[in-house]
């Protein structure tokens, strides 16, 4: 494993669709071993940025370097070392969980074991179930499993927990934390600030195609607190979601 300081660097990234400038000179530095969050409202350019980094979209200008490699020179090697979950992929409904993972596994030179990855996302009971019969949360976990089966060094997750119930969300969080604990890198996008706060070492807030703020969640909160007086402090730091999880338990609900 190449251990350079940065797992992902972009410089002056630009991409437009017709007249719409989706990404406008975006500079990003993701350190090796950190979980980096890309935050921003819909249409801010998050997905475009992440798909350029994944090699799925051509950029109009700028440079991208991943794991010390570039798409132009090392596409084959890069694909072996990246794990990708896309926002809108629908896996084939006719295949089972195990068949889907065996297929994705076959694309990689040094993949992980299918059963091991199934255990990682807690889909053991659904191993031989057709994808079409899975719940939303289970499908999402399978999508993450497909991203993990190639044993990647850099994991891209595009809104991995959108639409999930709190149990599935927390299960994915612990999966991400375990991945990060092995010294590997994650770039994720999310709309949930609590998720970013919990998971990300650093975040960048993107709007209109460029980064408007960057730092650790704590740093960002401090800088805002200086400019805007904070609201009256809450009696406890408990969120409503903590209450929900305390009452309904952490067990995954697979309807």
């Amino acid at each position, binding site marked *: 494993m190449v251990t350079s300081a940065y797992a992902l660097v972009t410089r002056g990234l630009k991409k437009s669709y017709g007249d719409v400038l989706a990404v406008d000179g975006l500079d990003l530095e993701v350190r090796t071993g950190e979980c980096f969050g890309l935050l921003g409202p819909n249409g801010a350019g998050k997905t475009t940025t992440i798909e350029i980094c*994944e*090699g*799925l979209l051509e950029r109009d200008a700028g440079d991208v370097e991943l794991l010390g490699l570039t798409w132009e020179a090392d*596409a*084959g090697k890069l*694909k*072996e070392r*990246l794990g*990708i979950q*896309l926002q*809108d*992929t*629908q*896996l*084939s409904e*006719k*295949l089972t969980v195990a*068949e889907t993972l*065996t*297929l*994705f*596994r*076959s*694309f*990689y*030179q*040094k993949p992980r074991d299918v059963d091991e990855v199934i255990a990682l996302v807690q889909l053991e009971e659904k191993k031989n179930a*057709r994808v079409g019969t899975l719940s939303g949360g289970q499908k999402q976990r399978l999508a993450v499993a*497909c991203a993990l089966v*190639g044993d990647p060094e850099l994991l891209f997750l595009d809104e991995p927990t959108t639409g999930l119930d709190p149990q599935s969300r927390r299960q994915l969080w612990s999966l991400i934390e375990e991945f990060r604990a092995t010294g590997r890198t994650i770039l994720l996008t999310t709309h949930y600030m609590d998720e970013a706060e919990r998971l990300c070492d650093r975040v960048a807030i993107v709007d209109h195609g460029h980064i408007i703020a960057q730092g650790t969640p704590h740093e960002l909160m401090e800088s805002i607190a200086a400019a805007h007086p904070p609201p009256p402090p809450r009696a406890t730091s408990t969120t409503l979601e903590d209450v929900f999880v305390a009452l309904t338990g952490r067990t995954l609900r697979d309807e």
Partner: protein
Amino acid sequence: MSDATPHPERRFVDRSLVQLTLVRFREFIRQPEAVFWTFVFPILLAVGLGLAFRSRAPDKPRIGVVTTPTTSRIIASLRRDSSMVVEQMDDSAAARALRTAKVTLLVVPEPDGSVRYVYDPVRSESATARLIADRAIQAGAGRTDPVKVTERRVTERGSRYIDFVIPGLLGMNLMGSGIWGIGFAIVDSRGKRLLKRFMATPMSRAEYLMSFLFSRLFFLILEVVALLGFGALAFGVPLRGSLLELGLICLVSALAFGGLGLLIASRAKTVEGVSGLMNFVMLPMWIFSGVFFSSSNFPNAVQPLIKALPLTAVNDALRANMLEGTSISGLSTEMIIISAWLVASFVLALKLFRWR
């Protein structure tokens, strides 16, 4: 670029080409409606058409003999000839039977030993009945034929409608499953962003496309054997040409239609869009390419266009092989047309293909 050499100790089933091909099989057989349209429907169609247009022996003429004192001798003479059905009836019943066409000829034996025929000369079966009845009556009265006759009866297989339509159905099936089987699955994957997801893995694009061809070829064998086997066993449709060459014609045809399917699917993003495109391509061929009736029914002016359609060439080649036993060297025009479609559609499809 993304053509990964397989890991040396990797098991055969873990290779991506094998896995991709397995996925094609699984997706196909887990779709009962696809299995029905590919395998069962052509056979049902063949059964229906075969029954509707089966060739029957011509009906035997029914002859009524009016009851008179000399009737029994006439009936005995007529019954000696098995090519007609003889009924005895009284005067009024006979008149009614002739009027309602229950009999085609009335024989009235006269008291003087002569015979009168009552029939409508405009009806050809009545005229025939008169000849047959007269022959039997004269022979019964002792007439002998001066010329000795022997005959050999031949019923030619290959000239019936079912013989015409089975190769046409096979051609239609090769076209349908090639274009649908490949085009639909690819556009479906593109629409679901699955193709894009695969592009984010080291999957080889060539292997992805090859998996479609491999699964097509496997199902091709089943389709051809099912339809031709059914035609041969149930209707005795002839297979006069070399089976190996017939297989080769089917193979090249399936590849050409697969290429056409790939071309149609090369850019379409939605299943709805590609369905319209496929029907637009296939409908003219269903009509013009001689599936259910000969394409020679169309005016001479459009014949060169019809001949250039891939399905016309496929149907002509299949019929020539099966019904006339023509060898493949005698089918060079058809094979050149099919191969040209194969090459042109693949080249164009790979140029236009949108992977995302």
